[in-house]
């Protein structure tokens, strides 16, 4: 990581220089693109196109073009019909029935049937598949038992085909957002006959059979993936004839290729955002991604809630957008804007005097306190944030703060084994429901590194997951957020990140998405 980040900094500087000169009008202008072909930068090689096993955003981006699930995210990030034309849930919210479209065919001509979902879900939960995201279906009856090996009978899983076009799902408890979970790729249907025929290579070009708007045409590993229009897509073929997804890891070389007219859509590296803010192709949207600092609530002085609140109140969050310049939004709340039940009123405000009073009430003499250790993973942005936090706490509270950085995997191991007193982390939504964010700090969450537990918080989050009444759900999440961000303050939310892209002038119909998903089925190139 150290070599990589050192290199990245140097490269950004060098390519930045090249770009600065190029943007001033020295560029030769873009070469003409073949009509109807979109060339975008994926950033990295998708580790797999096996949607049961994929976990990363690049794989999701490609799979989203190739496949569809029961539902899909519509405007306002609400689930809308996709392969299921309608669905209903029982009065107790535990049984869901999905009615599939009858006009969907896989790209080899085989009609889609409900059993393909049953096969996919069983495969996802089969311990031998070793799917990292199997837990997305842990709310389905028998899922956890099947995945942990305590049951080996796939028939015990609460999903069955009631006919070729009806899928019934039984949940362990009522989950109001279940139709949002079925937008996620791990729940997509699979063809076991093809997996049996090709083994691990079933998701490679020439073998992969899908049913989405695009089909996999060619996959030059670590270099470029090529998708072509699916003429038989059930919703009608998309306008684009072809998508070429390049795997250019560094943002700056990708921008140079954009300037040379060889790419139509690239993500902006943080340092380049400012330069492109006036570019006609600049696209920006707040992401469902929060950035926070966590306290290990077992380590003094953060075992005292007054100290945690004081440290949270001693940070002027409004400075982060100016400091980082990536379109961030300062946030003292946890549920980001764009997420249902977001409430901007929640959170501890910047109040250094009240913060000092809290420290005094806790009987702490800041000057006598051992230095506070803040640990973050090696990265230029995280370093800037950590230095800002250090200066805020030193200035407003008079404590000494020591910063330590770690290589990513070393950092993660430390978080799992023995979390430092203060650490940084972020969270991006897997599906746009508040539960995906709020569940993080429940007592049973593996992602809660704070060692903080609050049974009231746990109950509120559980109750909200089952609550169908919109205003009641708002009340429950407001109450839970107040405990998390104000009363107990095991975490200090800092800001919400943004999606920042630049698109070529001939690209039409493209809008970025707060989930950072690229929807390309309504996009075309003039």
């Amino acid at each position, binding site marked *: 990581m150290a*070599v*990589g980040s050192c*290199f990245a900094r*140097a*490269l950004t500087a*060098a*390519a930045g*220089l*090249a770009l600065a*000169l*190029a943007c001033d009008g*020295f*560029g*030769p202008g873009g070469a003409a693109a073949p009509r109807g072909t979109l060339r975008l930068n994926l950033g990295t*090689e998708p*580790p*797999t196109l*096996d949607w049961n*096993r*994929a*976990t990363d955003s690049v794989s999701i981006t490609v799979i989203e073009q190739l496949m569809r699930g029961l539902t899909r995210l519509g405007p306002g990030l609400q689930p809308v019909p996709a392969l299921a034309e309608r669905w209903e849930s029982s009065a107790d919210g535990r049984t869901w029935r999905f009615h599939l479209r009858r006009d969907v065919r896989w790209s080899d001509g085989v009609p889609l049937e409900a059993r393909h979902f049953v096969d996919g879900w069983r495969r996802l939960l089969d*311990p*031998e598949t*070793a*799917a*990292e995201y*199997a*837990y997305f279906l*842990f709310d389905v009856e028998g899922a*956890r038992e099947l*995945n942990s*090996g305590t049951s080996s009978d796939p028939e015990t899983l609460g999903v069955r085909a009631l006919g070729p076009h009806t899928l019934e799902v039984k949940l362990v408890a009522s989950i109001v957002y279940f139709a949002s979970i079925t937008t996620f790729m791990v729940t997509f249907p699979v063809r076991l006959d093809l997996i049996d025929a090709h083994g*691990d290579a*079933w*998701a490679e070009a020439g073998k992969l059979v899908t049913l989405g708007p695009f089909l996999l045409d060619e996959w030059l*590993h*670590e*270099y470029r993936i090529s998708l072509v229009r699916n003429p038989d897509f059930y919703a009608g073929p998309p306008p684009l004839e072809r998508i070429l997804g*390049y*795997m*250019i*890891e*560094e943002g700056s*070389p990708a921008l*140079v*290729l954009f*300037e*040379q007219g*060889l790419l139509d859509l690239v993500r902006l590296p943080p340092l380049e955002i400012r330069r492109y803010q006036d570019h006609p192709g600049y696209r920006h949207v707040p992401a469902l991604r929060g950035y926070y600092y966590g306290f290990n609530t077992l380590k003094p002085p953060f075992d005292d809630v007054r100290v945690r609140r004081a440290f949270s109140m001693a940070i002027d969050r409004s400075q982060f957008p100016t400091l980082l310049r990536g379109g961030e939004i300062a946030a003292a709340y946890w549920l980001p804007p764009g997420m249902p039940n977001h409430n901007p009123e929640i959170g501890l405000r910047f109040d250094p005097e009240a913060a000092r009073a809290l420290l005094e009430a806790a009987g702490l003499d800041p000057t006598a306190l051992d230095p506070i250790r803040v640990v973050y993973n090696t990265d230029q942005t995280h370093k800037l944030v950590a230095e800002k936090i250090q200066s805020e706490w030193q200035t407003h509270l008079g404590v000494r703060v020591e910063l330590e950085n770690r*290589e*990513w*995997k*070393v*950092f*993660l*191991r430390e978080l*799992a084994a023995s979390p430092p007193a203060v650490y940084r982390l972020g*969270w991006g939504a897997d599906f746009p429901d508040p539960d995906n964010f709020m569940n993080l700090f429940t007592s049973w969450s*593996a*992602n809660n590194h704070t060692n903080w537990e609050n049974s009231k918080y746990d109950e509120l989050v559980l109750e909200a997951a089952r609550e169908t009444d919109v205003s009641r759900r708002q009340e429950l999440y407001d109450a839970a957020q107040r405990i998390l961000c104000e009363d107990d303050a095991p975490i200090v939310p800092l800001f919400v990140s943004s999606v920042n892209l630049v698109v070529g002038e001939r690209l039409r119909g493209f809008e970025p998405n707060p989930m950072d998903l690229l929807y390309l089925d309504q996009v075309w190139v003039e």
Partner: protein
Amino acid sequence: MIRYAALRLLQGVPVLLVVATITFALLRVIPGGPFDREKTLPPEILRNVEARYHLDEPVARQYLRYLGGILTGDLGPSYKYLGRDVTQILADAFPVSMELGSAALAISLLFGVSAGLAGAVRRGRAPDRVLGMLAVAGMSLPSFVLGAGLILGFGLWLGWLPAGLWEGPLSVVLPAITLAAAPAAYIARLTRSSVLDVIDMDFVRTARAKGVSEARVRRHHVLRNALLAVTTYFGPLLAMLLTGSFVVEKVFAIPGMGRFFVTAVTNRDYPLVLGVTLVYAALIVIANLAVDLLYAWLDPRIRLGRSKA
């Protein structure tokens, strides 16, 4: 000669085993595992994943399993690129690095040796000084600066060459020059000093006295002897250039294997780290053998595989 080469290759086998063992041990010692994620895996899922890759077995058994795999040519599955074997990943990436590396090798040898020779025969004069300055620049300019400069000049300003990607012969030019600059400069310095050592020696003067033409003297008597020093450098250079460069591949977005030397470690993709390390080690063994064979060809006094009488 063939017997000698076969023997040397056989001697390389234990070398590779030692390299594999040390790398295997180091990977198990460094903190952080392949499945440590920002989104922590629930324990039952982590167990399934570890079982799939046999990471739940005792380390000794994992080691034996790994050695068994190497001996049968199976480097195992990548932990990062699901469903792909390391052998397959390297088979995709190595040819790209080899193509780029061969071009860079040719450029560095051609320019390095010519510049070194030209500088030596015009010692102290203007061309020698200019070449000397160029060589210092070539050695000291980091490749990402040179790469960015070439992209700016030939890619964006002049628009003659692609600023990146791997789409045909033109794509090779800028990255190959970037990759070749430092070795070419080093070879130039090496050649120049070796030529200067040789140029005043008795056998050269004898050749001239016998009326051999100056061109023939330079080619046969001076250069051939001076190249011995360059040959020593050739072994590690060959392995380095053929296995790709992390920096050059990133700057020009080239799908070679150089990136894996860094990304496989940051991902803790143990089989891929071991795979690239073994390929690199094997190339070093082969390149060193090639160097020894070259020595024998360049210097008739060297007799391989025979002790002196």
